[in-house]
């Protein structure tokens, strides 16, 4: 009995894994093929065309977009983590009237999807003259209710005695924050940062709306333009470019997976 259910479980898992991995494998195959082969429905490359990658890199100006993406994602991540840390710290360690209400407000923000706010956000940054700037892309994304929630849960596991001991020892709030809270929340901070970086890196719609010119556009838009601008669809180039764009995500996932899992499922203490 047990054997069968285990076999079934594995069958389902393998099926799901194949479904998940198929697009990735297919893209890899395409990215190494000849365009003519693809047109003829020949998806298994005869010869591996690694030069596709070089071509995609130069032709689509990927490096340029990538720079923008790195800037946007890095700054967004930094700001989001910093803000979430400070907000969570205040909610957990600084008693003030209405801290519960403030936290509730933050959480209700989590229920409003970003897409609903896109038009108002556009009007806001337009009015502020921030269209076509990094700031315009970044600013609406730096508040993260999820981040506050994640870090608060973690900080609540830090015994209050540590704060009291610090108060008696006479160290200030910021010292306690820096020397105790941040190190003890390390796992959650890394989790949040990886998560935030990926979301930002993969963000497509908002950077598109917030920009009209190429100067600050991010790589997802560049990718889209590559496939849209060519009259004749050049699948192998699109596939190669897609692979290049996906690499940072894969690297982060590869190295951060265990941490990510840990940080999302349990607290970092003990």
């Amino acid at each position, binding site marked *: 009995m047990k054997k069968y259910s285990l076999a079934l479980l594995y069958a389902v898992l393998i099926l799901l894994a194949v479904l998940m991995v198929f697009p990735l494998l297919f893209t890899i195959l395409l990215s190494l093929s000849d365009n003519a082969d693809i047109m003829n429905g020949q998806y298994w490359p005869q010869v591996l065309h690694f030069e596709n990658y070089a071509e995609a890199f130069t032709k689509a100006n990927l490096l340029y977009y990538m720079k923008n993406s790195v800037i946007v994602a890095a700054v967004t991540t930094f700001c989001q983590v910093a803000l979430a840390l400070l907000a969570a710290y205040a909610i957990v360690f600084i008693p003030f009237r209405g801290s519960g209400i403030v936290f509730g407000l933050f959480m209700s923000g989590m229920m409003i999807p970003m897409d609903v706010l896109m038009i108002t956000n556009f009007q806001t940054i337009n009015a502020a003259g921030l269209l076509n700037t990094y700031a315009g892309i970044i600013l609406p994304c730096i508040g993260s209710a999820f981040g506050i929630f994640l870090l608060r849960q973690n900080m609540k596991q830090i*015994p209050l005695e*540590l704060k*009291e*001991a610090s*108060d*008696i020892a*006479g160290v200030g709030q910021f010292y306690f924050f820096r020397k105790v809270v941040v190190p*003890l929340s390390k796992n959650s901070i890394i989790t949040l940062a990886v998560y935030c970086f990926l979301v930002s890196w993969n963000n497509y719609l908002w950077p598109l709306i917030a920009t009209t010119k190429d100067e600050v556009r991010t790589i997802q838009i560049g990718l889209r333009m590559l496939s849209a601008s060519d009259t004749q669809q050049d699948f192998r180039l699109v596939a190669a470019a897609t692979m290049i764009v996906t690499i940072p995500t894969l690297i982060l996932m590869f190295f951060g997976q265990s941490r990510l899992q840990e940080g999302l499922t349990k607290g970092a203490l003990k």
Partner: protein
Amino acid sequence: MIKMENIAKSYDGNTMVIRDIGLEIKKGEFFVLLGPSGCGKSTLLRMIAGLEEITAGDLWIDGRHANELLPKERNLSMVFQNYALFPHMTVRDNILFGLDARKVAKKEQDERLNKVAEIMGLAEYLKRKPAQLSGGQRQRVALARSICSQTPICLMDEPLSNLDAKLRGQMRGEIRRIQRMLGLTIVYVTHDQVEAMTMGDRIMVLNEGCVQQIGEPLTVYNDPENLQVATFIGMPQMNIFRARAEQEGLRLNGSLILRRCGGQPCPAPAEECIVGIRAEHFRRGNESTGYVLEAKAAMVEYTGDETQISFENGQGYSVVKWPGQIPAEAGEALTLGVDAEHLYFFDKDTGHRIRQDGGRSQ
């Protein structure tokens, strides 16, 4: 050093957790707050530390009015029940925590560290993390941190309660020794009467937020002010009987009779009262000068150095404790003597001590 006047505390504005406490703790004194769980010991200690607001009354620390002072301005240190060590820091950093903020020079910090590590026997553990230490070692780190801060007052909230019995005994002596050596003023919270008796210069017994008695350990033991204190201090607990004065003597719990030797009447302070007798104050046989009690042994227990015999008292069991290994068997008749001065009378309603002919009050 620490002075309180009419201190009171309420968390929710309705129920008083601490009521009208007044006391003065002298410099260099080892002062113990003793009481059952939930009586407000921690609350009182945390008010001294500045971690809880004082609802009413006045607190002075070192001559300064301290009600509104921040914890760090009170110039004291605190050892928490679960030690409150920083898990990600080494023992060294834990011990020196906060000295940077107090602007103690690095060289001075190292000197203090070395000295304290030697006193506490922590020298070889300085590079470890708290998780790599045993409970007793962690306890010592917490203590070392407190000592390193060189504050004149140290507050401790049940610091030994997480340790096993043997280690607890060892640490009791160690804390006491260091306190004497450094001349610290210590306010020590515990619900363990052995700790209170062995460590304290003075004990304050607290119950339901009210002071029951303040005094030196032996005074509190020998001369309890009320039933609360009498039953709380002493192992096994003081035997308590409802007593009624009758012709033959004192009728205990409506069954046993406590006879006066020589047939004289029993001078009970009231017709009905409560009488307490400590287990070790019963004598064997009728060699006593005062009173005699006839009972039947219900159970005999040997701890090795002591013999405890319990007997039925009409409402449960009372205990007799004698040193040595006394041959006895359950069911055997016991003749127990009690000296007059070892009878404690209490008011049957209020539980206040009734002192007879003023003889025994000190």
